[in-house]
C-alpha cells in the first residue's frame, strides 16, 4: 500500500463480490459494465446520504429511503420533497433492486442506473438539475478525489455518479429474514407461521412470487382512484388505457418495516390490506382477474397470514453498517 502511494500512481480500486443468495434467480442487472469496487461503493454511499444531490441541500436520497424502514419512508403515506411538497407515491423500500427489470410503481424506469435521475429532477422531490449536480460535485473539495479513487481520474460525470449510486444500492440484498433461515434449514416456522405460509402460497403467491415476493407485473387491485392524486399508474408510461390504475406488484419482504401500504400509502396496517382483498376490492374494467371477485380470507386466515408475513422482516439488513450513513 505504501509503495503504491509513493509511486504516485493511483491505487487500483478494490473489487467487491456480489453474491446471489442460494436458490434465487440470476439478477436482472449483473454489474457487468459497472464492476463494484470498495471505492465506488463508498462513493455511492456518500452520494446517497448527501443533500448535495438536491436543490436546497435538504433532500438526500436517504431522506425518503431510511435504513430502519428497509429504505422506505417510515410511517409516511407520501414522502416530503422540496418546498413543502408531497411526493406522488409511497416511497418503496430499497433492497434486491438488481432483480427488478423495471423500477417505480408505474415501471417507468427501464434501467437501475438511470433511476436516480427521476427523484433528483422531480420538482416535488429533490428539484435539482442534473448538469448542476455534476457541477456542484466537480467543485466540491472532496468529491473529485472520491471519483478518482473509484474511476481512475477526478472527472465527475453524470454517468460515473449514477454508476457509483448503482454500486451502493445494487449491493443492498435482503435475504436473511426468518423466512430465508427456514428455507436454508437453519430455523423452523412456528405452527402459526406455517399455517400462514400455506394460506399465503394458496392465495397470494401468484403475484407475490417467492423468493422475491413479487412477479414484477403491473396489476389493478381494485383501489379506487384518489381524486386529489389522480394517479392512473402504468397508463402514464404506456399511454394504453388497458393499463389504467395498474401498479407494480411490490415485494412483501420487510413488509412490517415499510408501512403504510399501497402505491399512495392509503393502508396503515397489514390487516387493512388483507381486508381490502377480502371485502374492499372495487371492480372496474382493468381490475385484475385474480382479485376481481375478491380473495376469500377468513378472520383466522388473516391472523395466520400476519404471522407468516412477519417472518419476512430482515433485521440483519436494517442493521447492516455497510448500508448505514458514511462514518
Amino acid at each position: 500500500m505504501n509503495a503504491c502511494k509513493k509511486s504516485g500512481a493511483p491505487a487500483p480500486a478494490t473489487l467487491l463480490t456480489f453474491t446471489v443468495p442460494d436458490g434465487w434467480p440470476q439478477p436482472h442487472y449483473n454489474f457487468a459494465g459497472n464492476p463494484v469496487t470498495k471505492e465506488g461503493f463508498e462513493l455511492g454511499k456518500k452520494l446517497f446520504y448527501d443533500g448535495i444531490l438536491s436543490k436546497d441541500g435538504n433532500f438526500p436520497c436517504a431522506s425518503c429511503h431510511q435504513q430502519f424502514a428497509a429504505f422506505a419512508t417510515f410511517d409516511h403515506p407520501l414522502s416530503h420533497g422540496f418546498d413543502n411538497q408531497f411526493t406522488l407515491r409511497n416511497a418503496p423500500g430499497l433492497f434486491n433492486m438488481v432483480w427488478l427489470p423495471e423500477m417505480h410503481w408505474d415501471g417507468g424506469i427501464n434501467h437501475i442506473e438511470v433511476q436516480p435521475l427521476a427523484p433528483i429532477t422531480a420538482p416535488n422531490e429533490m428539484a435539482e438539475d442534473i448538469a448542476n449536480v455534476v457541477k456542484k460535485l466537480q467543485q466540491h473539495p472532496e468529491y473529485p478525489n472520491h471519483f478518482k479513487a473509484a474511476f481512475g481520474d477526478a472527472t465527475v460525470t453524470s454517468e460515473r455518479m449514477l454508476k457509483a449510486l448503482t454500486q451502493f444500492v445494487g449491493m443492498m440484498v435482503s435475504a436473511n429474514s426468518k423466512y430465508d433461515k427456514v428455507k436454508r434449514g437453519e430455523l423452523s416456522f412456528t405452527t402459526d407461521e406455517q399455517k400462514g405460509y400455506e394460506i399465503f402460497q394458496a392465495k397470494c403467491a401468484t403475484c407475490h412470487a417467492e423468493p422475491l415476493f413479487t412477479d414484477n407485473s403491473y396489476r389493478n387491485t381494485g383501489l379506487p382512484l384518489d381524486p386529489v392524486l389522480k394517479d392512473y399508474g402504468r397508463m402514464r408510461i404506456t399511454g394504453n388505457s388497458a393499463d389504467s390504475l395498474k401498479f407494480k406488484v411490490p415485494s412483501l419482504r420487510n413488509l412490517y418495516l415499510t408501512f403504510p401500504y399501497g402505491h399512495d400509502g392509503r393502508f396503515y396496517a397489514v390487516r387493512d390490506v388483507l381486508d381490502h382483498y377480502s371485502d374492499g376490492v372495487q371492480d372496474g374494467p382493468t381490475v385484475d382477474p385474480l382479485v376481481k371477485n375478491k380473495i376469500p380470507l377468513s378472520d383466522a386466515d388473516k391472523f395466520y397470514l400476519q404471522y407468516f408475513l412477519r417472518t419476512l422482516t430482515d433485521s440483519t439488513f436494517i442493521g447492516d453498517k455497510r448500508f448505514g450513513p458514511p462514518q
Partner: protein
Amino acid sequence: MNAIRSCFTGLALVIVSLTSCQKEYSEPAKDHSFTLRFRPVVQDTDNILEFGKTYTNFFNEPFEVRTFRFYIHDIRLFNTQTGDYFESGREQHFLVDAADTMGSRINMKVPSGTYNRISFRIGVDSVRNFSGAQTGALDPALGMFWTWNSGYIMAKLEGTSPLTGQPGDVFEYHIGGFKAPDNVIQQVTLPFPSQQSVTLGKDGDTEVVIAADVYRWFNGVHDIRLDTNPVVMSPGPLAKKVAENYANMFSVLIFYFYL
C-alpha cells in the same frame, strides 16, 4: 527481380488495407475529412432561424423558437452507381443544437470515393434507450433524457406562440419513443443537389451544409397546429406524427471543398 518483388509486395499491402477497410470502418483508409454542418432555417433555406424572431407556420400561426435540437446517428455516404460506401455506425450519436454552432457541426473521416447520397437516422438508437447511464452526446445532463419514463428525447423544438393557451404561451415538442408502435426514429436519405455526385479525394477536406427546416414540423404529412397541439411531451401516436413531419425537414444545400 527485386523490382518485381517489391511491386508484388506493394500490391499485397494494398489488398490488405482494402480488406481491413471493409471489415472495420474505423481503419486508416478513411482519410478524407468530411464535415456535416446543419443550418437551422424557416421555410426558405436562405432564411436562417433566429431565436426570438416571429415566424408563421403553414396555418398562419405566429411562433418564436427558443430551443431546437435533435440527435442523429448511423450516418452513411453512398453511391448508387459505384457502390462506394461509408457508415458511421449505430453506436456513435451526435446532438445537433441550433443554439451552438459547433454542436451543429459533425466531423468524420471518410474513405475517398465518389458519393451521391447521404443518409442518417434521426434519434437515438433504440438499444441506447435502455442501456443505463451513458456519457458524451448521450449524457442525461444535456437535457435530452426523460427521467420519469426512461428514454431519450430524440428531437426538441420549444418556443412561444400567442395561440397555445399554455402558461407563458409556450409550445414544447419533446419527441421520443423507441418501442413499437410509437418508435419515432426516422430514416432520412438525401440526394445531393442537382443529382450530383461528389468526389472526395485523399487528404481533402469537405463540408456539406444541410438545411433543417423547423417549418416542416407543423405540416407536410400530418397537421400539427399550435392552437390544438401545443405540447407533446411523451411517446405516443402524436409524437410519431410530429416525427413523420420533421423527417422531411432536411435538404442538402451546398458543398464546400477546401484544399
